[in-house]
Protein backbone atom coordinates (compact mmCIF):
# COMPACT_ATOMS: atom_id res chain seq x y z
CA UNK A 1 0.00 0.00 0.00
CA UNK A 2 1.21 3.50 -0.78
CA UNK A 3 1.88 5.84 2.13
CA UNK A 4 2.38 8.86 -0.12
CA UNK A 5 0.85 9.47 -3.51
CA UNK A 6 1.61 12.61 -5.50
CA UNK A 7 0.20 13.40 -8.93
CA UNK A 8 1.07 16.39 -11.11
CA UNK A 9 1.85 18.52 -8.08
CA UNK A 10 2.41 22.21 -8.77
CA UNK A 11 3.31 25.26 -6.75
CA UNK A 12 4.00 28.76 -7.98
CA UNK A 13 5.20 31.66 -5.86
CA UNK A 14 4.75 35.32 -6.73
CA UNK A 15 7.98 37.10 -5.98
CA UNK A 16 8.42 40.87 -5.88
CA UNK A 17 10.91 42.34 -8.30
CA UNK A 18 12.83 45.50 -7.60
CA UNK A 19 15.31 47.34 -9.77
CA UNK A 20 18.58 48.20 -8.07
CA UNK A 21 19.19 51.38 -6.09
CA UNK A 22 16.95 54.08 -4.61
CA UNK A 23 15.20 54.69 -7.91
CA UNK A 24 14.24 51.05 -8.01
CA UNK A 25 12.87 51.27 -4.46
CA UNK A 26 10.70 54.29 -5.38
CA UNK A 27 9.49 52.52 -8.52
CA UNK A 28 8.66 49.44 -6.49
CA UNK A 29 6.32 51.55 -4.32
CA UNK A 30 4.65 53.35 -7.24
CA UNK A 31 4.54 50.45 -9.68
CA UNK A 32 5.19 47.20 -7.84
CA UNK A 33 6.27 44.39 -10.12
CA UNK A 34 6.02 40.72 -9.40
CA UNK A 35 7.13 37.65 -11.24
CA UNK A 36 5.98 34.08 -10.99
CA UNK A 37 8.45 31.45 -9.86
CA UNK A 38 7.39 27.90 -10.55
CA UNK A 39 8.85 26.05 -7.59
CA UNK A 40 7.24 22.67 -8.33
CA UNK A 41 6.20 21.73 -11.86
CA UNK A 42 4.07 18.64 -12.35
CA UNK A 43 5.80 16.33 -9.87
CA UNK A 44 4.39 12.79 -9.57
CA UNK A 45 5.61 9.89 -7.46
CA UNK A 46 4.51 7.35 -4.88
CA UNK A 47 6.11 6.04 -1.69
CA UNK A 48 5.27 2.62 -0.30
CA UNK A 49 4.58 1.97 3.37
CA UNK A 50 7.83 1.34 5.24
CA UNK A 51 9.96 2.64 2.37
CA UNK A 52 12.93 4.94 2.98
CA UNK A 53 13.09 7.50 0.21
CA UNK A 54 15.71 10.16 -0.43
CA UNK A 55 14.23 13.24 -2.09
CA UNK A 56 17.17 15.34 -3.12
CA UNK A 57 18.16 18.19 -5.36
CA UNK A 58 20.27 21.34 -5.42
CA UNK A 59 19.20 24.48 -3.52
CA UNK A 60 16.01 25.94 -4.96
CA UNK A 61 15.08 22.69 -6.72
CA UNK A 62 11.67 22.53 -5.03
CA UNK A 63 12.28 19.74 -2.51
CA UNK A 64 11.41 21.75 0.62
CA UNK A 65 8.34 23.18 -1.14
CA UNK A 66 7.24 19.63 -1.96
CA UNK A 67 7.77 18.42 1.62
CA UNK A 68 5.81 21.43 2.88
CA UNK A 69 2.90 20.57 0.60
CA UNK A 70 3.02 16.95 1.79
CA UNK A 71 2.82 18.04 5.43
CA UNK A 72 0.05 20.62 4.91
CA UNK A 73 2.22 23.70 5.48
CA UNK A 74 1.70 24.97 1.94
CA UNK A 75 -1.33 24.74 -0.30
CA UNK A 76 -0.61 23.28 -3.75
CA UNK A 77 -1.65 25.27 -6.82
CA UNK A 78 -2.35 22.14 -8.83
CA UNK A 79 -2.24 18.38 -8.78
CA UNK A 80 -3.19 15.91 -6.06
CA UNK A 81 -1.47 14.84 -2.85
CA UNK A 82 -2.45 12.04 -0.51
CA UNK A 83 -0.48 11.08 2.57
CA UNK A 84 -1.89 7.96 4.25
CA UNK A 85 -5.01 8.53 2.17
CA UNK A 86 -5.47 12.07 3.53
CA UNK A 87 -5.32 15.29 1.53
CA UNK A 88 -2.96 17.52 3.60
CA UNK A 89 -4.50 20.76 2.31
CA UNK A 90 -8.03 19.74 3.32
CA UNK A 91 -7.45 17.69 6.50
CA UNK A 92 -4.19 19.04 7.85
CA UNK A 93 -4.98 18.44 11.52
CA UNK A 94 -6.14 14.88 10.99
CA UNK A 95 -2.97 14.13 9.04
CA UNK A 96 -0.75 15.76 11.68
CA UNK A 97 -1.70 13.03 14.17
CA UNK A 98 -0.19 10.43 11.86
CA UNK A 99 2.97 12.09 10.60
CA UNK A 100 6.13 13.39 12.23
CA UNK A 101 8.37 16.16 10.96
CA UNK A 102 11.95 17.09 11.70
CA UNK A 103 13.28 20.24 10.08
CA UNK A 104 17.02 20.44 10.70
CA UNK A 105 16.97 24.20 10.24
CA UNK A 106 13.81 24.94 12.19
CA UNK A 107 13.45 24.13 15.85
CA UNK A 108 10.13 22.86 17.07
CA UNK A 109 11.21 22.58 20.67
CA UNK A 110 10.89 25.42 23.18
CA UNK A 111 14.47 26.42 23.86
CA UNK A 112 13.93 27.54 27.47
CA UNK A 113 12.28 24.29 28.48
CA UNK A 114 13.97 20.98 29.19
CA UNK A 115 13.49 18.12 26.70
CA UNK A 116 11.27 16.44 29.32
CA UNK A 117 8.92 19.46 29.57
CA UNK A 118 8.93 19.74 25.79
CA UNK A 119 7.95 16.09 25.42
CA UNK A 120 5.12 16.58 27.93
CA UNK A 121 3.92 19.54 25.87
CA UNK A 122 4.07 17.49 22.68
CA UNK A 123 2.15 14.73 24.47
CA UNK A 124 -0.63 17.25 25.16
CA UNK A 125 -0.54 18.51 21.57
CA UNK A 126 -1.06 14.99 20.25
CA UNK A 127 -3.75 14.20 22.88
CA UNK A 128 -1.71 11.37 24.41
CA UNK A 129 -2.92 10.47 27.92
CA UNK A 130 -0.48 11.56 30.64
CA UNK A 131 0.49 8.04 31.74
CA UNK A 132 1.08 6.97 28.16
CA UNK A 133 3.20 10.12 27.56
CA UNK A 134 5.35 9.26 30.57
CA UNK A 135 5.76 5.69 29.35
CA UNK A 136 6.72 6.80 25.86
CA UNK A 137 9.16 9.43 27.17
CA UNK A 138 10.84 6.74 29.30
CA UNK A 139 11.03 4.32 26.40
CA UNK A 140 12.38 6.85 23.87
CA UNK A 141 14.80 8.37 26.40
CA UNK A 142 16.36 4.96 26.87
CA UNK A 143 16.45 4.12 23.18
CA UNK A 144 17.85 7.50 22.10
CA UNK A 145 20.11 7.78 25.16
CA UNK A 146 18.77 11.14 26.32
CA UNK A 147 19.09 10.31 30.03
CA UNK A 148 22.13 12.55 30.57
CA UNK A 149 20.45 15.74 29.41
CA UNK A 150 16.68 15.22 29.55
CA UNK A 151 16.43 17.79 32.34
CA UNK A 152 18.75 20.39 30.78
CA UNK A 153 17.12 23.36 28.98
CA UNK A 154 17.22 22.85 25.21
CA UNK A 155 19.16 26.07 24.69
CA UNK A 156 22.08 24.56 26.64
CA UNK A 157 22.24 21.37 24.55
CA UNK A 158 24.72 20.67 21.78
CA UNK A 159 23.36 20.56 18.23
CA UNK A 160 23.57 16.78 18.16
CA UNK A 161 21.66 16.43 21.43
CA UNK A 162 19.05 18.90 20.20
CA UNK A 163 18.47 17.05 16.94
CA UNK A 164 18.05 13.79 18.87
CA UNK A 165 15.45 15.52 21.04
CA UNK A 166 13.72 16.92 17.93
CA UNK A 167 13.49 13.40 16.54
CA UNK A 168 12.12 12.02 19.82
CA UNK A 169 9.52 14.83 19.94
CA UNK A 170 8.42 13.90 16.44
CA UNK A 171 8.12 10.21 17.39
CA UNK A 172 6.16 10.59 20.60
CA UNK A 173 2.82 10.01 18.86
CA UNK A 174 4.11 7.02 16.84
CA UNK A 175 3.85 8.57 13.37
CA UNK A 176 3.40 6.30 10.38
CA UNK A 177 5.33 8.64 8.09
CA UNK A 178 8.33 10.68 9.14
CA UNK A 179 9.43 13.69 7.08
CA UNK A 180 13.05 14.60 7.66
CA UNK A 181 14.27 17.82 6.08
CA UNK A 182 18.07 17.88 6.38
CA UNK A 183 18.12 16.21 9.80
CA UNK A 184 21.92 15.96 10.00
CA UNK A 185 22.77 19.51 8.90
CA UNK A 186 25.68 20.90 10.93
CA UNK A 187 26.34 17.69 12.87
CA UNK A 188 29.74 16.09 13.34
CA UNK A 189 30.37 12.66 11.73
CA UNK A 190 29.87 10.69 14.97
CA UNK A 191 26.52 12.31 15.76
CA UNK A 192 25.45 12.02 12.11
CA UNK A 193 26.09 8.31 12.29
CA UNK A 194 24.11 7.95 15.52
CA UNK A 195 21.15 9.90 14.06
CA UNK A 196 21.22 7.72 10.95
CA UNK A 197 21.23 4.51 12.97
CA UNK A 198 18.28 5.78 15.03
CA UNK A 199 16.30 6.52 11.86
CA UNK A 200 17.15 3.07 10.50
CA UNK A 201 16.15 1.44 13.76
CA UNK A 202 12.82 3.23 13.73
CA UNK A 203 12.09 2.14 10.20
CA UNK A 204 12.99 -1.46 11.04
CA UNK A 205 11.05 -1.69 14.31
CA UNK A 206 7.91 0.31 13.49
CA UNK A 207 7.87 0.08 9.70
CA UNK A 208 7.85 3.89 9.64
CA UNK A 209 7.92 5.38 6.15
CA UNK A 210 10.86 7.77 5.87
CA UNK A 211 10.82 10.73 3.50
CA UNK A 212 14.25 12.30 3.64
CA UNK A 213 15.71 15.39 2.06
CA UNK A 214 19.39 16.00 2.58
CA UNK A 215 22.46 17.42 0.93
CA UNK A 216 24.55 14.87 2.74
CA UNK A 217 25.33 11.95 0.45
CA UNK A 218 26.14 9.83 3.51
CA UNK A 219 22.53 10.15 4.72
CA UNK A 220 21.22 9.09 1.36
CA UNK A 221 23.67 6.25 0.81
CA UNK A 222 23.35 4.78 4.27
CA UNK A 223 19.61 5.16 4.77
CA UNK A 224 17.72 5.00 1.52
CA UNK A 225 17.05 2.31 -1.02
CA UNK A 226 15.36 4.67 -3.43
CA UNK A 227 16.28 8.11 -4.62
CA UNK A 228 14.32 10.87 -6.34
CA UNK A 229 16.32 13.76 -7.73
CA UNK A 230 14.53 17.01 -8.42
CA UNK A 231 15.86 20.01 -10.24
CA UNK A 232 14.12 23.22 -11.32
CA UNK A 233 10.86 21.89 -9.86
CA UNK A 234 10.81 18.64 -11.82
CA UNK A 235 11.80 15.07 -11.14
CA UNK A 236 14.91 14.29 -13.15
CA UNK A 237 15.57 10.83 -11.74
CA UNK A 238 13.51 8.29 -9.80
CA UNK A 239 15.49 5.11 -9.31
CA UNK A 240 16.70 2.58 -6.76
CA UNK A 241 20.11 3.27 -5.21
CA UNK A 242 21.33 -0.06 -6.52
CA UNK A 243 20.26 0.77 -10.05
CA UNK A 244 21.73 4.24 -9.82
CA UNK A 245 25.10 2.87 -8.80
CA UNK A 246 24.98 0.17 -11.47
CA UNK A 247 24.26 2.69 -14.19
CA UNK A 248 26.53 5.45 -13.08
CA UNK A 249 29.38 3.59 -11.47
CA UNK A 250 31.00 2.49 -14.72
CA UNK A 251 33.76 4.90 -14.01
CA UNK A 252 36.61 3.96 -11.66
CA UNK A 253 39.19 6.19 -10.12
CA UNK A 254 42.70 4.68 -10.31
CA UNK A 255 45.37 6.31 -8.20
CA UNK A 256 48.91 5.09 -8.88
CA UNK A 257 52.37 5.80 -7.57
CA UNK A 258 54.92 4.73 -10.17
CA UNK A 259 58.45 3.57 -9.41
CA UNK A 260 59.77 6.36 -11.63
CA UNK A 261 58.33 9.29 -13.55
CA UNK A 262 56.38 8.02 -16.54
CA UNK A 263 54.24 9.42 -19.33
CA UNK A 264 50.86 7.76 -19.79
CA UNK A 265 49.62 6.81 -23.27
CA UNK A 266 46.54 8.54 -24.73
CA UNK A 267 43.98 5.72 -24.67
CA UNK A 268 40.21 5.93 -25.20
CA UNK A 269 38.47 5.41 -21.87
CA UNK A 270 41.36 6.65 -19.72
CA UNK A 271 41.34 10.28 -18.60
CA UNK A 272 44.26 11.70 -16.67
CA UNK A 273 42.79 13.76 -13.86
CA UNK A 274 46.08 14.63 -12.14
CA UNK A 275 49.69 13.83 -12.87
CA UNK A 276 52.53 15.11 -10.75
CA UNK A 277 55.92 13.41 -10.67
CA UNK A 278 55.43 9.72 -9.97
CA UNK A 279 51.80 10.20 -8.76
CA UNK A 280 48.83 10.04 -11.12
CA UNK A 281 45.06 10.03 -10.73
CA UNK A 282 43.20 8.50 -13.65
CA UNK A 283 39.54 8.01 -14.47
CA UNK A 284 38.80 4.76 -16.26
CA UNK A 285 35.54 4.39 -18.15
CA UNK A 286 34.86 0.65 -17.93
CA UNK A 287 32.24 0.95 -20.67
CA UNK A 288 35.04 1.88 -23.09
CA UNK A 289 37.94 -0.17 -21.72
CA UNK A 290 38.13 -3.06 -19.27
CA UNK A 291 39.93 -2.34 -16.04
CA UNK A 292 42.50 -5.10 -16.72
CA UNK A 293 43.32 -3.60 -20.11
CA UNK A 294 43.61 -0.18 -18.58
CA UNK A 295 46.10 -1.45 -16.01
CA UNK A 296 48.16 -3.11 -18.74
CA UNK A 297 48.21 0.18 -20.71
CA UNK A 298 49.58 2.11 -17.77
CA UNK A 299 52.26 -0.53 -17.27
CA UNK A 300 51.16 -2.12 -14.00
CA UNK A 301 54.56 -3.74 -13.47
CA UNK A 302 56.11 -0.30 -12.89
CA UNK A 303 53.53 0.57 -10.25
CA UNK A 304 54.77 0.96 -6.70
CA UNK A 305 51.35 1.48 -5.12
CA UNK A 306 47.78 1.44 -6.50
CA UNK A 307 44.26 2.26 -5.29
CA UNK A 308 41.10 1.62 -7.31
CA UNK A 309 37.83 3.16 -6.14
CA UNK A 310 34.37 4.01 -7.41
CA UNK A 311 33.50 7.56 -8.38
CA UNK A 312 31.97 9.07 -5.20
CA UNK A 313 28.16 9.11 -5.20
CA UNK A 314 28.42 12.84 -4.59
CA UNK A 315 30.07 13.29 -8.00
CA UNK A 316 27.43 11.14 -9.67
CA UNK A 317 24.65 13.21 -8.15
CA UNK A 318 26.41 16.41 -9.11
CA UNK A 319 26.67 15.20 -12.69
CA UNK A 320 22.95 14.37 -12.73
CA UNK A 321 22.13 17.82 -11.32
CA UNK A 322 24.16 19.47 -14.04
CA UNK A 323 23.04 17.32 -16.96
CA UNK A 324 19.37 16.94 -16.11
CA UNK A 325 19.05 20.41 -14.62
CA UNK A 326 19.76 21.94 -18.00
CA UNK A 327 17.04 19.81 -19.61
CA UNK A 328 14.54 20.58 -16.87
CA UNK A 329 15.20 24.30 -16.97
CA UNK A 330 14.85 24.41 -20.73
Amino acid at each position, binding site marked *: MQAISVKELEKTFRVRRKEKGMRGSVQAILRPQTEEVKAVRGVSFGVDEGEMLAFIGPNGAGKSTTIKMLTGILYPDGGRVEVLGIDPAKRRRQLA*YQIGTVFGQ*KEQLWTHLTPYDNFRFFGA*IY*DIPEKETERRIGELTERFELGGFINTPVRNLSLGQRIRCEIVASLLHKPKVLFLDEPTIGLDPVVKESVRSLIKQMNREFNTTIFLTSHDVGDIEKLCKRIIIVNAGQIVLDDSMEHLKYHYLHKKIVEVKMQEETTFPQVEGITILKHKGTYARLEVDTAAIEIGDALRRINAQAVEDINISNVPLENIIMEIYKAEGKDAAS
Partner: protein
Amino acid sequence: MLTVVKNQILVCILSVKYNIMREMLNKVTFLMNVTFMILNNASILIQWFVLFRLREDIGGYTMREVMLLWGLTAASFGLSRVLFARVYSLPELIVSGKLDSYLVQPKNVLLSVMTSSTNISAIGDLLYGLILLAVCGLGVRGFLLSLLFVVTGMIILTAFALFLGSLAFWFVRVEMLSGEMVMGLISFATYPDGIFQGISRFLLYFIMPVGMIVYHPVHILVRFDAGMFFTVLGYACLLSVAATVVFYRGLRRYASSSLMEARM
Protein backbone atom coordinates in the same frame (compact mmCIF):
# COMPACT_ATOMS: atom_id res chain seq x y z
CA MET B 1 -16.15 17.36 19.91
CA LEU B 2 -16.10 18.23 23.61
CA THR B 3 -12.82 16.33 24.04
CA VAL B 4 -11.30 18.21 21.10
CA VAL B 5 -12.22 21.56 22.68
CA LYS B 6 -11.01 20.38 26.09
CA ASN B 7 -7.65 19.25 24.67
CA GLN B 8 -7.28 22.48 22.72
CA ILE B 9 -7.88 24.56 25.85
CA LEU B 10 -5.41 22.37 27.76
CA VAL B 11 -2.70 23.01 25.13
CA CYS B 12 -3.41 26.75 25.20
CA ILE B 13 -3.15 26.82 29.00
CA LEU B 14 0.10 24.81 28.87
CA SER B 15 1.47 27.15 26.24
CA VAL B 16 0.69 30.27 28.32
CA LYS B 17 2.09 28.54 31.42
CA TYR B 18 5.36 27.74 29.65
CA ASN B 19 5.56 31.29 28.30
CA ILE B 20 5.24 32.72 31.80
CA MET B 21 7.76 30.14 33.09
CA ARG B 22 10.22 31.39 30.47
CA GLU B 23 9.73 34.99 31.51
CA MET B 24 10.19 34.06 35.16
CA LEU B 25 13.58 32.47 34.47
CA ASN B 26 15.16 35.80 35.29
CA LYS B 27 13.38 36.64 38.53
CA VAL B 28 14.81 40.16 38.95
CA THR B 29 13.98 41.27 35.38
CA PHE B 30 10.52 39.76 35.72
CA LEU B 31 9.68 41.55 38.98
CA MET B 32 11.25 44.82 37.81
CA ASN B 33 9.27 44.80 34.58
CA VAL B 34 5.97 44.13 36.32
CA THR B 35 6.61 46.68 39.09
CA PHE B 36 7.80 49.44 36.77
CA MET B 37 4.86 48.99 34.43
CA ILE B 38 2.50 49.46 37.40
CA LEU B 39 4.44 52.53 38.58
CA ASN B 40 4.58 53.94 35.05
CA ASN B 41 0.82 53.65 34.65
CA ALA B 42 0.24 55.08 38.14
CA SER B 43 2.38 58.15 37.40
CA ILE B 44 0.08 59.09 34.50
CA LEU B 45 -2.96 58.82 36.72
CA ILE B 46 -1.36 61.39 39.07
CA GLN B 47 -1.48 63.87 36.17
CA TRP B 48 -5.22 63.27 35.92
CA PHE B 49 -5.59 63.90 39.68
CA VAL B 50 -3.89 67.26 39.22
CA LEU B 51 -6.13 68.12 36.24
CA PHE B 52 -9.28 67.27 38.16
CA ARG B 53 -8.20 69.62 40.96
CA LEU B 54 -8.43 72.41 38.37
CA ARG B 55 -11.68 71.28 36.67
CA GLU B 56 -14.60 69.25 37.84
CA ASP B 57 -15.16 67.36 34.62
CA ILE B 58 -13.16 66.79 31.47
CA GLY B 59 -15.02 65.70 28.33
CA GLY B 60 -17.96 64.71 30.52
CA TYR B 61 -15.80 62.46 32.73
CA THR B 62 -15.09 62.68 36.44
CA MET B 63 -11.98 61.26 38.09
CA ARG B 64 -13.81 58.01 38.83
CA GLU B 65 -14.72 57.54 35.17
CA VAL B 66 -11.16 58.26 34.08
CA MET B 67 -10.05 55.58 36.53
CA LEU B 68 -12.56 53.18 34.98
CA LEU B 69 -11.25 54.11 31.53
CA TRP B 70 -7.67 53.43 32.58
CA GLY B 71 -8.63 50.28 34.46
CA LEU B 72 -10.45 48.78 31.49
CA THR B 73 -7.79 49.79 28.97
CA ALA B 74 -4.83 48.57 31.02
CA ALA B 75 -6.51 45.31 32.01
CA SER B 76 -7.80 44.53 28.48
CA PHE B 77 -4.48 45.36 26.84
CA GLY B 78 -2.59 43.52 29.59
CA LEU B 79 -4.74 40.39 29.38
CA SER B 80 -4.48 40.37 25.59
CA ARG B 81 -0.67 40.55 25.70
CA VAL B 82 -0.36 38.01 28.52
CA LEU B 83 -2.44 35.42 26.67
CA PHE B 84 -2.01 36.31 23.00
CA ALA B 85 1.14 38.44 22.72
CA ARG B 86 2.18 36.75 19.48
CA VAL B 87 -0.76 38.27 17.64
CA TYR B 88 1.02 41.62 17.88
CA SER B 89 4.02 40.27 15.96
CA LEU B 90 1.96 38.21 13.51
CA PRO B 91 3.07 40.17 10.41
CA GLU B 92 6.71 39.33 11.15
CA LEU B 93 5.86 35.61 11.54
CA ILE B 94 3.94 35.59 8.27
CA VAL B 95 6.47 37.53 6.21
CA SER B 96 9.48 35.56 7.44
CA GLY B 97 7.67 32.22 7.15
CA LYS B 98 7.69 31.21 10.80
CA LEU B 99 4.31 29.50 10.97
CA ASP B 100 5.63 26.08 9.86
CA SER B 101 6.02 24.52 13.30
CA TYR B 102 2.41 25.43 14.19
CA LEU B 103 1.08 24.09 10.90
CA VAL B 104 2.47 20.57 11.42
CA GLN B 105 0.72 20.21 14.77
CA PRO B 106 -2.76 18.71 15.06
CA LYS B 107 -4.15 21.73 16.86
CA ASN B 108 -5.89 24.94 15.87
CA VAL B 109 -3.11 26.86 14.16
CA LEU B 110 -4.45 30.30 15.07
CA LEU B 111 -4.73 29.56 18.79
CA SER B 112 -1.34 27.83 18.79
CA VAL B 113 0.31 30.86 17.20
CA MET B 114 -1.46 33.43 19.37
CA THR B 115 -0.64 31.68 22.66
CA SER B 116 3.00 31.02 21.76
CA SER B 117 4.35 34.12 23.46
CA THR B 118 3.67 36.37 26.40
CA ASN B 119 4.75 39.85 27.43
CA ILE B 120 6.03 40.35 30.96
CA SER B 121 5.26 44.03 31.30
CA ALA B 122 1.67 43.20 30.30
CA ILE B 123 1.31 41.41 33.65
CA GLY B 124 1.95 44.83 35.23
CA ASP B 125 -0.73 46.38 32.99
CA LEU B 126 -3.20 43.66 33.91
CA LEU B 127 -2.58 43.94 37.67
CA TYR B 128 -2.74 47.72 37.54
CA GLY B 129 -6.01 47.64 35.58
CA LEU B 130 -7.62 45.17 37.97
CA ILE B 131 -6.50 47.18 41.02
CA LEU B 132 -8.02 50.35 39.54
CA LEU B 133 -11.32 48.61 38.78
CA ALA B 134 -11.38 47.18 42.30
CA VAL B 135 -10.91 50.58 43.96
CA CYS B 136 -13.39 52.47 41.76
CA GLY B 137 -16.25 51.64 44.12
CA LEU B 138 -18.30 49.67 41.59
CA GLY B 139 -19.68 47.21 44.10
CA VAL B 140 -19.59 43.44 43.58
CA ARG B 141 -21.99 43.40 40.60
CA GLY B 142 -20.30 46.37 38.97
CA PHE B 143 -16.87 44.85 39.49
CA LEU B 144 -17.96 41.53 37.95
CA LEU B 145 -19.46 43.45 35.02
CA SER B 146 -16.19 45.34 34.61
CA LEU B 147 -14.35 41.99 34.48
CA LEU B 148 -16.67 40.92 31.67
CA PHE B 149 -15.73 44.12 29.83
CA VAL B 150 -12.05 43.38 30.40
CA VAL B 151 -12.65 40.11 28.56
CA THR B 152 -14.68 41.70 25.73
CA GLY B 153 -12.05 44.47 25.48
CA MET B 154 -9.33 41.84 25.29
CA ILE B 155 -11.24 39.95 22.58
CA ILE B 156 -11.86 43.08 20.49
CA LEU B 157 -8.28 44.29 20.86
CA THR B 158 -6.84 40.88 19.96
CA ALA B 159 -9.21 40.48 17.02
CA PHE B 160 -8.34 43.98 15.79
CA ALA B 161 -4.60 43.18 15.94
CA LEU B 162 -5.25 39.80 14.30
CA PHE B 163 -7.24 41.40 11.50
CA LEU B 164 -4.50 43.96 10.77
CA GLY B 165 -1.68 41.43 11.23
CA SER B 166 -3.31 38.95 8.84
CA LEU B 167 -3.13 41.55 6.08
CA ALA B 168 0.58 40.62 5.94
CA PHE B 169 -0.49 37.57 3.90
CA TRP B 170 -1.31 40.06 1.13
CA PHE B 171 0.87 43.10 1.86
CA VAL B 172 4.50 42.81 2.91
CA ARG B 173 5.07 45.96 4.95
CA VAL B 174 1.93 45.84 7.02
CA GLU B 175 3.63 45.49 10.42
CA MET B 176 4.18 49.25 10.77
CA LEU B 177 0.55 50.09 10.00
CA SER B 178 -0.63 47.32 12.30
CA GLY B 179 1.65 48.44 15.16
CA GLU B 180 0.75 52.10 14.80
CA MET B 181 -2.99 51.39 14.67
CA VAL B 182 -2.89 49.28 17.83
CA MET B 183 -0.74 51.76 19.76
CA GLY B 184 -2.91 54.64 18.52
CA LEU B 185 -5.97 52.78 19.71
CA ILE B 186 -4.45 52.32 23.18
CA SER B 187 -3.50 56.01 23.38
CA PHE B 188 -7.00 57.19 22.42
CA ALA B 189 -8.53 54.72 24.87
CA THR B 190 -7.01 56.58 27.81
CA TYR B 191 -8.81 59.89 27.10
CA PRO B 192 -12.50 60.65 27.69
CA ASP B 193 -14.54 60.26 24.50
CA GLY B 194 -16.23 63.60 25.17
CA ILE B 195 -13.12 65.51 24.06
CA PHE B 196 -13.30 63.95 20.57
CA GLN B 197 -15.75 65.40 18.08
CA GLY B 198 -16.52 65.04 14.38
CA ILE B 199 -14.24 62.82 12.31
CA SER B 200 -12.05 61.74 15.21
CA ARG B 201 -15.14 60.56 17.09
CA PHE B 202 -16.35 58.69 14.00
CA LEU B 203 -12.90 57.07 13.69
CA LEU B 204 -12.86 55.98 17.32
CA TYR B 205 -16.25 54.32 17.11
CA PHE B 206 -16.21 52.85 13.62
CA ILE B 207 -12.60 52.43 12.39
CA MET B 208 -10.60 51.89 15.57
CA PRO B 209 -12.86 50.01 17.97
CA VAL B 210 -11.97 52.17 21.00
CA GLY B 211 -15.66 52.89 21.56
CA MET B 212 -16.41 49.17 21.91
CA ILE B 213 -13.36 48.41 24.05
CA VAL B 214 -13.73 51.16 26.67
CA TYR B 215 -16.14 54.03 25.98
CA HIS B 216 -19.35 51.98 25.83
CA PRO B 217 -18.27 49.81 28.81
CA VAL B 218 -17.52 52.91 30.92
CA HIS B 219 -20.94 54.36 30.06
CA ILE B 220 -22.59 51.04 30.90
CA LEU B 221 -20.74 50.81 34.23
CA VAL B 222 -21.91 54.35 35.10
CA ARG B 223 -25.47 53.76 33.91
CA PHE B 224 -26.52 50.33 32.64
CA ASP B 225 -27.86 50.28 29.09
CA ALA B 226 -28.95 46.88 27.75
CA GLY B 227 -28.79 47.96 24.10
CA MET B 228 -25.22 49.19 24.48
CA PHE B 229 -24.33 46.05 26.45
CA PHE B 230 -25.46 43.69 23.71
CA THR B 231 -23.85 45.90 21.05
CA VAL B 232 -20.48 45.41 22.77
CA LEU B 233 -20.97 41.64 23.08
CA GLY B 234 -22.16 41.36 19.47
CA TYR B 235 -19.27 43.47 18.18
CA ALA B 236 -16.73 41.32 20.05
CA CYS B 237 -18.18 38.17 18.44
CA LEU B 238 -18.43 39.72 15.00
CA LEU B 239 -14.92 41.15 14.91
CA SER B 240 -13.46 37.85 16.19
CA VAL B 241 -15.21 35.91 13.44
CA ALA B 242 -14.18 38.44 10.78
CA ALA B 243 -10.52 38.45 11.92
CA THR B 244 -10.44 34.64 12.03
CA VAL B 245 -11.89 34.42 8.52
CA VAL B 246 -9.30 36.89 7.21
CA PHE B 247 -6.49 34.91 8.90
CA TYR B 248 -7.57 31.59 7.39
CA ARG B 249 -8.17 33.12 3.96
CA GLY B 250 -4.66 34.55 4.15
CA LEU B 251 -3.16 31.29 5.37
CA ARG B 252 -3.83 29.82 1.93
CA ARG B 253 -1.32 32.36 0.60
CA TYR B 254 1.31 31.52 3.21
CA ALA B 255 4.66 31.01 1.49
CA SER B 256 6.87 29.72 4.35
CA SER B 257 10.65 30.28 3.99
CA SER B 258 13.97 28.55 4.23
CA LEU B 259 15.30 30.82 6.98
CA MET B 260 16.94 29.25 10.01
CA GLU B 261 14.70 29.68 13.03
CA ALA B 262 14.29 28.71 16.62
CA ARG B 263 11.25 28.65 18.87
CA MET B 264 12.19 31.14 21.55
